[in-house]
């Protein structure tokens, strides 16, 4: 009898593991373009296992590890796989001491206890358990274990972080499918992995289009404010950081909605299921507190992707250099006052400030005709790739324009899109 329940639990553990592998492989086949993208997670299980070992010896670590409950959760499932249900229960109970409101751990504890009394049929064996809630917790288990088993490798970086401006100390990258948020530090322009955390996204997934669609937006954003706990209801937990959805690009694409935040969880909840919010990115309170220290209001980029693409450092360097060259060409071509050459950097589908390409070109030709000289300086440059199937990058910089009859300084944002192999500006405006 005990044997049978073990087998069933074992089946559950295997099924969770297999679920992970399956999801990985399906993604790989879908994305033939970004060959490198799936390589990063291919970290062997040995490294995280070794990392988990100190936890095994230390009785109830009191310090918060960036990896949160995942190492212990992984050990629970490992114990289940090895038919060591007593150990699994013990581990689960110690996990609950650290995270008393961790519903997933309560569910596993229930299963392990129930398995002592009768054969159980699998994950969430509670009689009459609401299937949607069990499914939510199961998804959370899969998301956490997968993320734990595929920590980003040190030699790969998210493709989006091509160039951080010098004063951006950190960048946030969110992978909605993996339910994961990654924090990167700006190490002289090169993103260096700091930590990753479990997150919840919109109930209906990502790619927000309109108000109330319960989806999380995908794109390049930044935090615009910090709302302290005192100003919020308990629902938002330890605080909130709104982001600038919809951004210029979203608006141009006709996307609307508002109030997309990074925020915490209610005080009686350690974490919410992977798909739970109305579009916000939700973190455990302790995790929100941890990343809050790294968030610079108005500055820290928050890049939300369906599925983060990873580049080897070589590929990343190549992409970054190519873009820097393109931007430099745009700048010098502007200074050259050769308007037609300058306009080659702009897409035929360019649209900004109420102008289409023709109107914009006509204006530039007229303005440039009156110039005897032009100087353009671009400082504090950042280049972030926009997640999604279109190849779009978001470029932000402080532009100092001077000429014989006009001086102007502004913060400028451009969206460049690769068209027929060439990067072209499709939008530009004040940031």
């Amino acid at each position, binding site marked *: 009898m005990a044997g049978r329940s073990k087998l069933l639990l074992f089946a559950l553990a295997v099924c969770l593991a297999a679920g992970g592998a399956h999801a990985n492989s399906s993604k790989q086949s879908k994305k033939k373009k970004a060959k490198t993208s799936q390589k990063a997670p291919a970290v062997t299980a040995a490294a995280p296992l070794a990392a988990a070992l100190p936890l095994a010896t230390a009785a109830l670590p009191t310090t918060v590890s960036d990896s949160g409950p995942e190492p212990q959760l992984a050990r629970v499932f490992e114990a289940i796989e090895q038919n060591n249900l007593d150990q699994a229960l013990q581990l689960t109970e110690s996990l609950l001491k650290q995270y008393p409101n961790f519903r997933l751990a309560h569910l596993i504890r229930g299963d392990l206890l129930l398995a002592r009394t009768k054969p159980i049929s699998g994950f*969430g064996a509670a009689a009459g358990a609401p299937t949607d809630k069990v499914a939510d917790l199961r998804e959370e288990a899969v998301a956490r274990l997968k993320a734990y088993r595929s920590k980003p490798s040190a030699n790969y970086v998210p493709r989006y972080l091509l160039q951080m401006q010098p004063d951006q100390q950190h960048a946030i990258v969110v992978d909605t499918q993996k339910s994961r948020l990654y924090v990167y530090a700006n190490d002289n322009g090169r993103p260096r992995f700091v930590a990753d955390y479990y997150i919840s996204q919109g109930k209906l997934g990502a790619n927000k289009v309109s108000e109330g669609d319960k989806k999380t937006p995908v794109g390049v954003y930044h935090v615009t404010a910090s709302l302290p706990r005192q100003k919020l209801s308990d629902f938002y937990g330890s605080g909130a950081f709104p982001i600038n959805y919809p951004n210029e690009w979203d608006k141009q694409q006709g996307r609307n909605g508002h109030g997309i935040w990074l925020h915490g969880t209610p005080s009686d909840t350690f974490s919410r299921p992977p798909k739970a919010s109305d579009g916000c990115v939700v973190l455990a309170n302790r995790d929100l507190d941890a990343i809050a220290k790294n968030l610079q209001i108005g500055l820290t980029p928050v890049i939300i992707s369906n599925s983060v693409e990873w580049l080897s450092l070589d590929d990343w360097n190549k992409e970054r250099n190519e873009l820097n060259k393109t931007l430099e060409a745009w700048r010098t071509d502007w200074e050259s006052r050769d308007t037609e050459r300058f306009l080659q950097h702009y897409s035929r589908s360019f649209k900004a400030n109420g102008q289409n390409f023709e109107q914009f070109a006509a204006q530039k030709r007229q303005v440039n005709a009156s110039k005897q000289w032009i100087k353009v300086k671009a400082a504090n440059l950042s280049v972030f790739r926009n997640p999604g199937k279109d190849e779009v990058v978001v470029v932000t910089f402080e532009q100092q324009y001077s000429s014989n009859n006009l001086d102007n300084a502004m913060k400028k944002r451009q969206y460049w899109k690769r068209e027929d192999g060439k990067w072209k500006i499709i939008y530009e405006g004040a940031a």
Partner: protein
Amino acid sequence: MATKSFFRTQTGVTLRAIFFGAAIAAAFPALADNLPDVQKLIKQGQYPQALSKVDAFLASKPKDAQGRFLKGLILTELNKPNEAIAVFTKLTEDYPELPEPYNNLAVLYAQQKQYDKARTALEMAIRTHPAYAIAYENLGDVYAKLASQAYDKALQIDSSNPTAQNKLALIRDLISTSGKPGVKPQMPAVAKAEPVKTEPAKQAEPAKVATAPAAAPVPATPAAAPAPATPSVKTTAPTAAVVATTPTTTMAAAAAAPAKAAPAAPAKADAGNEEIRKALSGWAAAWSNKEVKTYLAYYGPEFKPPKGMSRKAWETQREERIAGKGGKISVTFDEPTITISGDKATVKFRQHYKAPGLSTSSNKTLVMGRSGGKWLIVDEDIR
């Protein structure tokens, strides 16, 4: 033959009673005086009479295990669970090698829905006697209850569904001390509609539980560690009389040891200790003086009333039990052991409670938290 499930409590928990064989009387031939009379009175359901008789017996033999065990049973019958818990708790402390008091303690805790405590007690019962079938069945039920509580927390559902009947069995005799062949704890005298688990399964499973010390905090009683896998009841104390005369000092010392081990380190008599001691005195004084408001003010806002009671219900209950009590109450305590860590402190002490008709001593653990310069109780635990 005893009636089936004649225990009924306010929580609607039905206790499965083990029938009380005629052999039992013979099992305690050496019993002094009137214990058989007490048993007869219990059998006849004359609990108040049984209680006064057993109290009279205990007046002359206050340490007697059998007498105290019967008193615990009577108090359970009289629906005085807290007093019964106190009796059985004390028995487990004085005779940690006896599984029955642990089992009955577990039954009482389970009635109060304190399943974690029930589990710990049952695991102790099994540790002392690995082949104790009733404890296993009870433990199975407790695991199921704990599982259901865990599911409630996981799924945010309220499973206090009335159909889930609890059926923990109260043990009615100190069988393990009888040494009487044929009086085995596994005796399947329990007429149960439910199919009893098969013997081999029971042997296999328990062994696992017993050998792998679970996470449950277990009072260290190394002396009680049994030789595992002895299906027949091994007894060192051949009769109850021996139990009764066993110098309890060694037992008590062994039981008390874990409590005293920690404080062995010289406790710093720092300011925090002093503040806590003061709070404790104030708390006990308010209780003794029936100043309910003052008494309740010693409990912080985070304090979770037992049994999932609401704060309000708990306060009302405390008010009834303190202010509503006729006669004098006296609450005193022995020198507490105080462990402070930051703004939290664990305070362990022996509490002596005296009121008309009841006098108990119990080991109490208070978890206190400092807030606004005051130490308030955030958790209260009697062991």
